[in-house]
């Protein structure tokens, strides 16, 4: 059973129209590599290039889209790792803010576990990655559990959004 009941009320600011839903669902991979990609998308969706461009700009401004672009295979360029820490609840906010302050940290979540702070560090090379992990340990006073990817079993085709 898919629990879709609350989706519309959970949407950030507003409901999305049919064109926006198609844009968000249909072009997560295989984005056209042609001179005028937005024109090609417009033809597919039966509208104009301007409408597509404005619509994407708006979706990005409103935070539904992070970007139009490439997702790189982990560790194919540069170095990255998942990392986790055990931080006392009273210090979590401060440590999390310190971790988020690094431009090398792109995801940082609190999770419901003994290991309660989870983040991803991405840097130009291993040395730069190590430096960030060392600094985080030093500034927080807590060890960082380092969990680099060893094998990737997932074929990334984007995410199938379930519209109600």
């Amino acid at each position, binding site marked *: 059973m898919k629990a879709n009941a609350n989706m519309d009320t959970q949407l950030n600011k507003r409901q999305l129209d049919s064109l926006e839903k198609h844009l968000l669902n249909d072009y997560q*991979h295989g984005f056209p*590599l042609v*001179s005028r990609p937005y024109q090609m998308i417009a033809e597919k969706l039966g509208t104009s290039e301007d409408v597509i461009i404005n619509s994407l700009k708006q979706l990005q401004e409103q*935070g539904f889209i*992070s970007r139009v672009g490439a997702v*790189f*295979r982990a560790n194919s360029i540069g170095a990255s790792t998942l990392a986790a820490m055990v931080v006392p609840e009273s210090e979590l906010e401060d440590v999390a803010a310190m971790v988020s302050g690094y431009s090398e940290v792109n995801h940082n979540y609190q*999770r419901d576990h003994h290991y309660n702070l989870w983040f991803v560090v991405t840097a130009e090379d291993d040395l730069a990655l190590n430096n960030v992990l060392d600094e985080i340990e030093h500034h927080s006073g807590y060890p960082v559990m380092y969990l680099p990817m*060893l094998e990737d079993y997932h074929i990334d085709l984007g995410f199938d959004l379930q519209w109600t």
Partner: protein
Amino acid sequence: MKVRYRQPLLPERAILDERDQALITLVQTGLPISARPYMDLGKKLGMGESEVIARINQLKKSKVIKRFGIVVRHHELGYRANGMTVWNIPDETVSELGSCMGQFDFVTLCYRRPRRLPDWPYNLFTMIHGLNQDDVLTNIQLLIERCGLSEIEHEVLFSTRRFKQRGAIYREINTNSKVS
């Protein structure tokens, strides 16, 4: 300095020339949303539109680029729950079971990672998004049935707060990224 040695199974780094590197530096933060995005990108790099397109195509072919398209923000689209599910799978079967899990569309990441004994016994990580926690748990149950995981120890770590989320930046952008 404590050195965290790389694991032997890590994929080979792709060999990228200077022009690829400059292009990656720019394209990692996104394509311009303009009528001729590849041309606009090329202007900043001293590259023609067709070269930009050809290089992106090549990076896709060599799997440096895993996916090229619109990157959505799940949370803003109503997918409020994300359950990082971690599994303790015998080393002999981890590739087989990982490949089984990796083909489900609700699994957005499926990585093998090292165990850190005695603190951390789990060697397979799957990221499962859902509209809410029940939705995530339903999907995990489906994985257990379809991939035969009923004997495999696992834990689900729900996110309770998102402190930061954005695309990875491998190389800092500097104004001298133009190549000759």
